[in-house]
């Protein structure tokens, strides 16, 4: 399943408020398939990076204990019209990125 992220980037004064919502199972590797009893392999986003107009503003390491379909919210000093980009990698090696213009 391919991972996707929805981003809302809104300028408020001299700050930009980010709300991001991924669709990702965030499997810990400890859960069992209820029908077969087999362990469901770990699969979770473990690294993300956020950039504003090409400059890094945050990077983060995540554990499998982040909820399924991760939601993240924060703000940073920035301007309307700037490009905001999130990139991520999960524990299976899948990577992705998405950029949006600050509204």
């Amino acid at each position, binding site marked *: 399943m391919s991972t996707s992220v929805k981003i809302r980037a809104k300028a408020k004064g001299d700050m930009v408020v980010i709300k991001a919502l991924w669709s990702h199972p965030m499997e810990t590797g400890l859960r069992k398939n209820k029908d077969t009893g087999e362990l469901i392999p770990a699969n979770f986003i473990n690294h993300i990076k956020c950039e504003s107009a090409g400059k890094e503003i*945050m990077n983060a390491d995540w554990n499998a204990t*982040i909820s*399924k379909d991760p*939601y993240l919210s924060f703000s940073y000093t920035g301007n309307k019209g700037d490009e905001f980009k999130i990139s991520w990698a999960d524990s299976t090696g899948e990577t992705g990125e998405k950029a949006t213009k600050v509204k």
Partner: protein
Amino acid sequence: MKLSNKRRLFLKSAVATSSLGVAISAGLLTPSAVLASWPETAFTAKSSADAINALFGATATQSDKVIVDVNDVAENGAIVPVTIKTSLENVENMSILVNENTSPMTASFNLQPEFGDSVSIRVKVAKPSDIIGVVKAGGKLYSNKKHVKVTQGGCG
């Protein structure tokens, strides 16, 4: 994060590699789950103190300038909204730990000066637990915590 810290982390991970290799060969970890950049030792540590020490090489002092915002009671432990907020200056890192989870270290954010004073995320909480917020500011570690009751665990 400063270069010197990265170097320290690298040294730590190099030291930890030998035991990690044992874990892989014992089938405890699949190699695909091991990413070079991921701070394995901190994120698999079984206690909050070990995790904080593995990530920062220091212990945190309790501070009211770190605010952990979480509901008193969470009905569904699978989705517990947590906000870490701080009034400290020169913040370099904000981290979230769920003390009673098997691996407490949940998220660690490395911040640039443009970053705001808070971060919100949803976490899994297996059983009633303190949520610990750690903030690294001006080279020093500060922490605070808040207890959350869960009626239904979030890791099953």
